[in-house]
């Protein structure tokens, strides 16, 4: 189909939007509300363009290209309209960019800059709303909301949660949970995908930076840090390096410079999780436990299951997540090994996730009044701290994590992407069942991009049937199918709440738009696979440090001590009546 774009003849695909055509042709039309892959809403009007023969401007995101269409993306009228839209948005926006967490990383601020907005054109007509700091994961500041609806659509259409929506109408519209309630009482699972798409500072993570800095300054505290598998492959983006660069050794060095006394790798705990979870799987298969076994490492998924399908909680692995296993080991076995009082240990984790903040705060993740993990920083918060402390990441001498809890297999590293937990678990389950390591190291199908993936792996006489759900929306679909009896022979189901897994988590560096987000997800995932391909130690059960932990502390997987430290026994949450 032929059309002209700013006077140039171009070929458009059938059904292609003007926005997609322009971006394919190397022309950026600004957007605030557009989300790749979700329904166009046309709410923000930033993408308006002029068409020959049409009196009004049309939104490029929702208008399909038609044969012979003459499109003017940056005509004086279109550009002027965009500037006016920015000015109108600013009329109901606080002028506090200097104090805003998103300053320098805000789409609205950027558009005001590029459109030359140099003064407030209309007097401020601010509507003031209450801050919502009720959630342990996500903070809301509706004053900064421009009502683009990106968070609403991501929460409902991509995650299938629908914790927030537009309430009211017209100038009194506000994005809020049901009954204008607080986020902690809503169905929010804390995944933070809303933050990832928010163009302004209306949504952010609940910051733990202050308490981490306070602990680092406190001479009485021994501050221990762990970093999650998907952190080392994304941190580079915060410092202008190409996405997909693995900065693991520099990250370790930087954490030491910040003053952490011990630097550990969450992938160690992932190996430990694999040992426990593979043993749990084999035990359920041989002793007739509830199958399929659901993985429990993604806290937003655990919360979702508790809320939406409590009857299926017996399927959930009793294993704590790697973050919490590490926390428990640090304040028990490690403390004893070093002769430290667990009460003096301050345990920090660096996570690509906001739900991990909520997970760390759950009461079952504390023993004798001490939380297993005291503070959780997102990748964005860590980057802020590194910048504040003037640490030049790339110029640091590479360093190694501390032993023994910094020792990891590269399978543990795979936990950072959808499919990786299953792959890691299969390597060890195969060994448990047959006594031999599985022949192919990579089960390719597990690393595909479809939301739901199935694989069958031969382990001796047993065929292990596994499913991978990438994103809560896919998880809901799979769970529905399981409840309808469509998958009677599945052994294990891996669920990552965020589509793509932790590499695309709600605590990761922010993307510019949907294309950018997809590209970053793919290269972060590829970086993790590369780490595994090049790894010397690729099987969780070969991690000698985990082996020593069993020898010295835990005994066997699923032992009583392992249960005390590494497992939770969930009570079914009571139904809350309206």
């Amino acid at each position, binding site marked *: 189909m032929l059309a002209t774009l700013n006077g140039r003849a171009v070929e458009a695909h059938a059904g292609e939007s003007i926005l997609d055509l322009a971006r394919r042709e190397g022309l950026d039309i600004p957007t605030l509300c557009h989300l790749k892959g979700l329904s166009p809403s046309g709410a923000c009007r930033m993408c308006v363009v002029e068409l020959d023969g049409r009196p009004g401007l049309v939104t490029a995101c929702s208008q399909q290209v038609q044969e012979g269409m003459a499109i003017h993306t940056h005509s004086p009228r279109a550009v002027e309209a965009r500037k006016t839209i920015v000015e109108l948005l600013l009329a109901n926006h606080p002028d506090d960019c200097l104090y805003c967490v998103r300053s320098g990383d805000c789409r609205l601020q950027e558009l005001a800059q590029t459109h030359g907005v140099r003064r407030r054109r209309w007097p401020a007509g601010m509507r003031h709303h209450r801050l919502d700091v009720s959630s342990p994961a996500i903070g809301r500041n509706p004053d900064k909301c421009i009502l683009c609806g990106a968070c609403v659509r991501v929460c409902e259409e991509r995650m299938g949660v629908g914790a927030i929506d537009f309430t009211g109408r017209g100038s009194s519209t506000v994005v809020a949970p049901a009954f*204008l309630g607080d986020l902690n009482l*809503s*169905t929010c699972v804390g995944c933070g995908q809303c933050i990832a798409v928010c163009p302004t500072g209306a949504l952010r993570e609940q910051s733990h930076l202050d308490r981490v800095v306070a602990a680092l300054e406190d001479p009485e505290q021994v501050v221990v840090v762990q970093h999650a598998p998907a952190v080392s492959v994304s941190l580079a983006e915060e410092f202008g390096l190409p996405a997909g660069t693995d900065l693991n050794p520099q990250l370790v060095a930087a954490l030491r410079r910040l003053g952490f006394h011990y630097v550990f790798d969450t992938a160690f705990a992932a190996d430990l999780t694999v040992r426990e979870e593979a043993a749990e799987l084999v035990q359920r298969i041989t002793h007739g436990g509830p199958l399929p076994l659901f993985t429990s490492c993604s806290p937003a998924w655990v919360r979702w299951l508790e809320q939406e399908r409590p009857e299926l909680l017996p399927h959930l692995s009793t294993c704590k997540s790697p973050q919490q296993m590490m926390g428990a080991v640090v304040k028990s076995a490690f403390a004893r090994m070093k002769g430290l009082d667990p009460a003096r240990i301050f345990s920090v984790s660096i996570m690509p996730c906001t739900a991990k903040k909520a997970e760390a705060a759950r009461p079952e993740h504390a023993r004798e009044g001490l939380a297993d993990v005291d503070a959780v920083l997102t990748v964005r918060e860590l980057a802020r701290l590194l910048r504040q402390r003037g640490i030049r990441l790339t110029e640091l001498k590479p360093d190694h994590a501390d032993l023994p809890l910094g020792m990891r297999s590269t399978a543990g590293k795979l936990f950072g992407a959808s499919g990786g937990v299953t792959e890691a678990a299969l390597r060890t389950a195969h060994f448990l069942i047959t006594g031999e390591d599985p022949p192919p190291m990579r089960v390719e199908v597990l690393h595909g991009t479809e939301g739901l993936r199935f694989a069958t792996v031969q382990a001796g006489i047993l065929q292990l049937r596994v499913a991978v759900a990438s994103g809560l929306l896919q998880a809901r679909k799979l769970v529905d199918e399981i409840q309808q009896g469509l998958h009677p022979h599945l052994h294990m189901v891996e669920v990552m709440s965020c589509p793509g897994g932790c590499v695309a988590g709600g605590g990761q560096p922010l993307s510019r738009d949907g294309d950018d987000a997809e590209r970053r997800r793919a290269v972060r995932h590829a970086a993790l696979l590369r780490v595994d391909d090049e790894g010397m130690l690729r099987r969780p059960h070969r991690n000698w440090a985990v082996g020593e932990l069993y020898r010295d502390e835990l005994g066997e997987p699923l032992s009583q001590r392992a249960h005390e430290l590494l497992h939770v026994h969930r009570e079914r949450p009571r139904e809350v009546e309206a």
Partner: protein
Amino acid sequence: MVQACDMDLVDALLARHGACGRQDLIPLLQEIQEAEGFLSRAALRRVAAHLHLPESKVYGVATFYNQFRFQPRGRCAIAVCRGTACHVKGSAAVLAALQRELRIQAGATTRDGLFSLDVVSCIGACGLAPVIAVGDDYHAGVSPTQVPGIVASYRAKLQALGEGVLEPSTSVEEVLA
């Protein structure tokens, strides 16, 4: 005062509808309000569960439309006309005076359950502007200074009635005559 819908009635209404989808949301809300006079949280939650919709979606839709209310009407419902003619004649000041006097916003009900206050777009009595309807009575040419007296007279009537129902004292016809 805790205000709740009769949930048995809501459940019966939903059961009568059987399986339905998101396109039935607004008709269901209308029926519940028709029967109960307002939409309680519990009723909205029940509708969300029935339609497999997020509560936030149901609440969002319900708050979008002016026709839905979230508190029961007071024993005496006050409607302030905000049509063009009434606006020109100063209905905004009358509404403000009522909100001050009753200590509630438009759309709400006083805590003692005596009065509810609503805004309507046009009563159709532009010759009487600014006009308010108090229960079934109409008051023409209302000024803000009259508001405390009007409210006090109905409060006295309601208190004298006890549990009884307020009868209309004037009709549009009488006012017009």
